[in-house]
C-alpha cells in the first residue's frame, strides 16, 4: 500500500487527500443520518448527499462519465422517483423509534460490526495496488474508452440490460395500473356526490383573513377560531396565539418616558 504518484493522476495530492477525507466523512455521516432519522423525506435527502459525494469521488478517480451519470441518472432521476413515491404514500408516516422485533437491533449491530471487521481484514490482506490510470490507452478519453468497452466486450450484457429496462418499464406500468372496479364517475355523478356530502364549498385556502400567508398558517373562521381544513395534512398548523396581532389603540403599549417600561399608551393611537 505505498503511495506512488503516477503520471495521469492528480498531481496536487494534498488537495486530493483533503477533498477525499472531507467527502468521506461527509458521506459516512450522511449515511448514518440516513438510517437514524425518523422521517422518510430526510432519509431521501441524506441519500442524495451521499450520492453527490460519491459522484465527486468518481470524478477524482478518473471516471468523469460515471460521475455525471451518477448525478443525472441516479440522484436526479432515481432519487427523485423515490421522493415522488414518498409523496404519494409515505410522507406522513414516520417510523416509531420502538423496535418491534426483539433483539433485532442488537443482532443487526453485532452482525454488521462483525461483517465490517471481516471485510476490513479482507481488504487489509488484499493486494490492492496503487492507481495505475496511466495504463489507459493514449489518445482516448474516458468516454470513448467506456463506449468502446460497452459496444465490444460487453455488448451482450448491454443488450440484455436494454431488455431489462423495457421489462421494468412495462412491469411498472402493469403494477401501477388500477383497474377500475366501477365505471369512471361522470361530472354529474361527482357533483351529486358533493351535494350529498354536505361539504359543498372548497376547503378554505390557508391564511385567509390572516395576517400571514404562509401555507402552514390556518385560516380564521368568522368566530375567531382556526379552521383545520385550511392546512394540508402534511404540515402541522402553526399556532397563531403567540403571534403579534392587530392591536386596537386602547390596548397598545408604549414606553413612557418615566419608567422605561412598556405601559398602556395615554393616547389611543398606535405608533406605525
Amino acid at each position, binding site marked *: 500500500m505505498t503511495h506512488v504518484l503516477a503520471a495521469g493522476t492528480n498531481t496536487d495530492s494534498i488537495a486530493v487527500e483533503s477533498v477525499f477525507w472531507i467527502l468521506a466523512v461527509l458521506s459516512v455521516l450522511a449515511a448514518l443520518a440516513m*438510517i437514524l432519522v425518523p422521517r422518510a423525506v430526510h432519509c431521501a435527502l441524506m441519500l442524495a448527499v451521499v450520492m453527490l459525494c460519491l459522484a465527486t*469521488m468518481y470524478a477524482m478517480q478518473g*471516471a468523469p462519465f460515471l460521475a455525471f451519470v451518477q448525478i443525472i441518472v441516479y440522484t436526479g432521476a432515481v432519487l427523485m422517483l423515490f421522493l415522488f413515491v414518498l409523496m404519494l404514500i409515505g410522507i406522513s408516516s414516520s*417510523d416509531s423509534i420502538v423496535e418491534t422485533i426483539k433483539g433485532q*437491533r442488537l443482532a443487526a449491530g453485532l452482525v454488521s460490526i462483525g461483517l465490517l471487521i471481516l471485510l476490513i481484514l479482507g481488504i487489509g490482506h488484499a493486494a490492492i*495496488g496503487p492507481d495505475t490510470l496511466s495504463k489507459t490507452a493514449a489518445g482516448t478519453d474516458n468516454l470513448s474508452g467506456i463506449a468502446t468497452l460497452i459496444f465490444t466486450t460487453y455488448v451482450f450484457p448491454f443488450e440484455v440490460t436494454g431488455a431489462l429496462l423495457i421489462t421494468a418499464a412495462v412491469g411498472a406500468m402493469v403494477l401501477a395500473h388500477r383497474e377500475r372496479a366501477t365505471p369512471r364517475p361522470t361530472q354529474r355523478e361527482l357533483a351529486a356526490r358533493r351535494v350529498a356530502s354536505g361539504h359543498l364549498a372548497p376547503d378554505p385556502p390557508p391564511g385567509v383573513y390572516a395576517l400571514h400567508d404562509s401555507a402552514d398558517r390556518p385560516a380564521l373562521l368568522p368566530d375567531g377560531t382556526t379552521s383545520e381544513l385550511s392546512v394540508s395534512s402534511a404540515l402541522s398548523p402553526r399556532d397563531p396565539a403567540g403571534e403579534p396581532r392587530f392591536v386596537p389603540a386602547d390596548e397598545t403599549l408604549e414606553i413612557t418616558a418615566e419608567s422605561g417600561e412598556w405601559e398602556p399608551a395615554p393616547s389611543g393611537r398606535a405608533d406605525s
Partner: protein
Amino acid sequence: MTPVHYVALSVILFVIGGVGVLVRRNAIVVFMCIELMLNACNLAFVAFASMHGNLDGQVIAFFVMVVAAAEVVVGLAILMAIYRARRSASVDDANLLKW
C-alpha cells in the same frame, strides 16, 4: 488517495446500508438503504478499475446503475400496489407467512 481508502469507504457505506435494511421499518427507507449498498459497490468497482488501469470496473458500475434504476422502478411500483391494498407501507405488516 490509494484505492484502498476508497474500498474501505465503500465497505463502511455498505455495512451502514445493511444495518439500515435491518433496522428501518418504512419500506421506502429500506429501499433507499439498498440503494446505498449498491452505490457503495459502485464505488468499489470504480476503485478497482483505477487499480487495474482498465475501464472494466467502470463499465460494470455503469451497468449496476442501470439495473438499479430498473429495480427501483419495479420495486416502487410494487410498494405502491401494496400500499393501495393494505394502506400501510411498513415491512412489518406483511408478516402473514409465518408459523
